């Protein structure tokens, strides 16, 4: 599973993307966030602001209960501020 980070989430985690293999019980976006938070102090710092983080699965905005699988591209980022 490829995980991408943008904006301050990327800065706190300390990388733009990584390849991960979460355990089978990680079946949705919310569970993935909780699991990622345990990977490093940077991940923990980023996901401590979980309520301020939005997600996308395969480049579509995704709610916390969106199911995820091994081949998915999952992205985490703050609320968007374009325009």
């Amino acid at each position: 599973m490829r995980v991408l980070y943008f904006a301050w989430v990327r800065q706190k985690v300390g990388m733009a993307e990584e390849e991960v293999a979460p355990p089978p019980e990680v079946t949705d976006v919310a569970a993935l966030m909780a699991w990622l938070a345990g990977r490093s102090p940077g991940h923990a710092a980023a996901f401590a602001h979980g309520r301020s983080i939005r997600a996308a699965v395969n480049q579509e905005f995704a709610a916390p209960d969106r199911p995820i699988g091994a081949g998915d591209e999952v992205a985490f980022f703050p609320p968007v501020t374009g325009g």
Partner: protein
Amino acid sequence: MTGPGPRLTQAPSAVSDADPGRNGMQPRVRVQEAPFDLAEETAALTTGRTDIGGLASFIGICRADDGLAAMVLEHYPGMTERAIQRIAAEACARWPLSGCTVIHRHGRLRPGEPIVLVLTASSHRAAALESCAFLIDWLKTRAPFWKREEFADGESRWVEAKAEDDASAARWEDAATSRAAGAAA
């Protein structure tokens, strides 16, 4: 494999998987670092056409608030283009548009530089004006861009999403668009 290949290969298909407008019109969407030219884009939309009665345009410009030295716009290559195509397709579904162009820049922009261009053309002014306002409102809340402000003293900060932008976007909400609500969830 963590190279950028798979992500980049999805970008071109983002342009082709959009729904055309109800009159078959294909919105023109670009995400680029380079500046854009209003006259050139207007000509591209209107040259040789005699059915267009109104053209509306919006240009968002980088403002020098609080000693801002530059604005850095980050985006999500592939998803950003797809999201804008979808917003443009929504505009085409709601209004009878003869043409629609959205160009959004990324990278480092200085005060006074244009950030985003929205052009909408229709046979009558109401559709052009309303769809132009709709497009910029939804771009602000549904297109994956993130702004970081850099100041003359070396400080920088990420811009936070504004409640008034959510309110502006929400005025266009109706049951038909609830499928896109994930963006604001």
